[in-house]
């Protein structure tokens, strides 16, 4: 019972903070709210006993990526009100589109087979670090190694892109 209440509260808070991400005018606030949203999502992972992902989400997403965002915002000195304005028509059409998307997704949900399944009845050991580690380093080892190449590429790309043009010429 208490879990049910907790999950409802968590869910509403997640949605609320996500809404704040897109509603707040100031980009820095958006980032903060996004970090909050990620916290809530992490807690949901914990509820489903996906411990490894919860930790990764916490560290990588909320910690590293979001800080990167903040960093860039600071770097560009955008923390004042230079936010471009959107016109009303686009907002309304986006709202309608988003709303109908939501409705469609919900109606799709009605057809899913897992309706009413309790997550606690499931085997809860799969989200543990050990289990995932086994899987990662056996079945997905190639993909895992390739991610490192992706990271190098991303790193090189980021450096190259962010460098000033003068420096490229030199």
């Amino acid at each position, binding site marked *: 019972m208490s*879990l*049910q*209440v907790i*999950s*409802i509260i968590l*869910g509403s808070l*997640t*949605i609320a903070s*996500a809404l704040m*991400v*897109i509603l707040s005018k100031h980009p820095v606030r*958006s*980032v903060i709210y*996004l970090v909050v*949203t990620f916290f809530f*999502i992490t807690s*949901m992972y914990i509820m*489903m*006993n*996906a411990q490894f*992902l919860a930790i*990764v*989400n916490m560290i*990588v*997403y909320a910690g*590293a*990526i979001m800080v990167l*965002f903040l960093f*860039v*915002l600071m770097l*560009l000195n955008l923390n004042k009100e230079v*936010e*471009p304005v*959107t016109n009303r028509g*686009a907002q309304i059409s*986006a*709202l309608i*589109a*988003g*709303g109908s*998307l*939501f409705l469609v997704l919900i109606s799709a*949900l009605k057809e*899913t087979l*897992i*309706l009413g*399944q309790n997550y606690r009845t*499931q085997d809860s050991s*799969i*989200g543990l670090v050990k289990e*995932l580690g086994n899987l990662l380093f056996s*079945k*997905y080892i190639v*993909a895992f190694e390739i*991610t490192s190449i992706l*990271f190098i590429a*991303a790193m090189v790309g*980021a450096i190259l*892109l962010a460098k*000033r043009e003068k420096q490229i010429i030199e």
Partner: protein
Amino acid sequence: MQAANSIGTSLDFFLFVAFALFTIGAIGAMTRKNMIVLLMCIELMLNAVNLLLVTFSTYYGSGDAQIFVFFTMVVAAAEATVGLSIIIMAYRNLKSIDIDMFNQLKN
């Protein structure tokens, strides 16, 4: 199981939250013009999908989906770094981060 009981304890609640997050992300991406916020909205949508994957992973009792989420995060991290550096570049050239300024490929 009772419907009242199911809210919150059943897996489809997480699905509901994931859909909501995805929709919010999509609306944000459509309405906001700030490129950084746009990128954030995309991150939000990615996270919604991650949540969905974890939910199904729990349901099926298989870890593969969680591995996939892990890879998604990897890609998201890479994407964020590259995306942000592109934004920096763009800002340097155009002195703006309005996404609608970046339509010069049109012609």
